[in-house]
């Protein structure tokens, strides 16, 4: 098992470098750079601009800049005198590289990008966990029942709902919910994470009404996916020998379905964790924007409009790392719950 986990982690290394390279290359095409940002002052001397560019390395070829971004430039002080004695804060500070968790400072807020993301991550995770819980607790029973009554009215109704659930645009559903429950009926808050504007939010159970609409919008795809997947998985179990045995020895139908069938049908669901995480992260961008939910997605949108590249890069890399971890976790989980899987 340990060997399997290590192998999966080693396999993830080239993917990780691919992600950093791809996002770096996209960003090099972007207009605006820290030098012009720092030298916005019209009274600044040309030599000062040159000196700053040399220190920040913005004139180096891109592979050098990419390496600098990856592993930092504090070690370069050994060779280059002009880099010594830089401050620990500010935009021209010492860089430690993203491999050591230093994504640079936000152009706009002048704070370390990682710190700003860490502040926003709990809100997104809160949404993500709620979505996962709702889609599992609704999707799996629906799938089991659809399989038990396959071909029946419930099965057909859930099939239609699943297709519609996959086809409805997230942002539009959000708007409709806000219009109906926020604007017309006024029973749910139209957005935000809590009523307070300062000093953080109270614990989740005191502000569940704020979660209802965003979680509904984000769970729809999950419920549709899980129920269909669970149904297929259940129907596969019906033809197994052990189900026939259970029926043959006279167990009541409920027992056969829920105690024997459902347990084994649940195993493949473990592989859904990775894709589910991707869905939540991607969907969160749109949903957080509509419901002004102060998470990673909203931070990304604001940063893109402000051209705050360190934060954009950091959120892309961190979201991708979370995705890779999610995929590895679901594979490992699959191996754990299914003893037939050998490494």
């Amino acid at each position, binding site marked *: 098992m340990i060997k399997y986990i290590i192998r999966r982690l080693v396999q993830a290394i080239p*993917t990780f470098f*691919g992600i950093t390279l791809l*996002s770096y290359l*996209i*960003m090099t095409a972007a207009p605006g750079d820290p030098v012009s940002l720092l030298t916005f002052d019209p009274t600044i001397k040309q030599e000062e601009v040159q000196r700053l560019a040399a220190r920040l390395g913005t004139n180096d070829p891109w592979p050098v800049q990419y390496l600098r971004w990856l592993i930092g430039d504090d070690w370069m002080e050994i060779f280059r005198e002009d880099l010594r004695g830089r401050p620990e804060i500010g935009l021209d500070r010492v860089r430690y590289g993203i491999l050591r968790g230093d994504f640079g400072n936000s152009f706009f807020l002048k704070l370390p990008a990682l710190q700003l993301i860490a502040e926003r991550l709990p809100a997104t995770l809160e949404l993500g966990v709620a979505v996962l819980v709702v889609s599992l607790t609704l999707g799996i029973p629906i799938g089991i029942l659809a399989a038990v009554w396959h071909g029946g009215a419930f099965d057909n109704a859930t099939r239609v709902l699943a297709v519609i659930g996959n086809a409805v645009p997230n942002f539009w559903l959000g*708007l409709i919910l806000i*219009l109906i429950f926020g604007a017309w009926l006024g029973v749910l808050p139209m957005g935000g994470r809590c009523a307070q504007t300062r000093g953080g939010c109270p614990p989740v159970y005191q502000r569940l009404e704020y979660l209802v609409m965003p979680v509904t919008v984000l769970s729809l795809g999950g419920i549709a996916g899980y129920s269909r997947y669970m149904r297929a998985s259940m129907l596969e179990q019906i033809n197994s020998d052990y189900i026939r045995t259970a029926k043959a020895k006279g167990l009541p139908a409920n027992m056969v379905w829920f105690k024997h069938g459902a347990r084994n049908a649940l195993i493949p669901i473990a592989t859904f964790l990775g894709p589910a995480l991707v869905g939540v*992260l991607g969907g969160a961008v749109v949903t957080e924007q509509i419901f002004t939910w102060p998470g990673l997605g909203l931070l990304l949108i604001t940063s893109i409009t402000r051209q705050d590249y360190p934060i954009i890069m950091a959120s892309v890399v961190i*979201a991708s790392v979370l*995705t890779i971890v999610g995929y590895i976790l679901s594979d490992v989980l699959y191996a754990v719950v299914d003893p037939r899987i050998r490494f």
Partner: protein
Amino acid sequence: MASTSQTSQPGVVTLGAEPGKPRRSESLTQRALRRLRRDRLTMIAISVILLLTFLAIMAPVISTQILGVDFAKANPVNAFLPINSPGHILGTDDLGRDHLARLLYGGQVSLGIAFTAALLSIGIGVAMGVVTGFYGGVVDDLVIWLITTINSIPSLFLLLIISAVLSPGPFGLIMVLGLLGWTGTTRLVRGETLSLREREFVVSARALGASDRRIMFVHILPNLISIITIALAIDIGVLILVESGLSFLGFGIQPPIPSWGNMLTGAQTFMRRAPHLVFAPGLLILITVLCMYIIGDGIRDAFDPRMES
């Protein structure tokens, strides 16, 4: 599968010749088409898509000749007219532009982008999938690495930063969507090619001295027709959703060009005054995507020999 191997009768067909005389037995594609025509739900979905496409293409004629409005003409005095107003059947938007005319033109943009971007991404996906599956080796490893990398970045994140950096127009957006959307098709086609490559009819074609190109075009590609058409239908649906989401966020199609997505961008600010503006664009997206998914499913069933009743 047998039908396509018939096209290469040993000794009869020479390189680059016509792909065979009229077949006596019904081909796989012919049978699929016959079964598709009997599938009522899929035929309804296809009709709806054709109707929407027709309306979108005819948008200039319909809006000037029948509705008698200019889709781009803003008139603040007429802003937020309700449904069934004189001269504006579906009312007007925040700038007093005719809602129905803008929906028709928006359809041009949304459908046009989704259709062309899907064709582009499927084209790239099929080419890459067939080549990597057929040859394998270093190129295969490299492509697989690229696919894993692209799939590890949440797709909306990737699309957002690219759209933000390049701020593409409609044509640029087609390129971006097409160049990012090929990974799924490549994986599918590659897997299928890997298995087709070892089948008897390919092995015998190779034994008869068929070139790699001929094997790929004459023996492998025709057998991929079912998964390609299914992927195309599903892809168009997905791309409609992606484009509308991007445009809604303000990173796709930029106003004043209407798209079903960006027509909802300001909806939150005026939804109390003009709720009718919120429903139509989303409903059109939903209907289009739903129809594309139904068509994809229908094609899958039509090609599936186990579904023959």
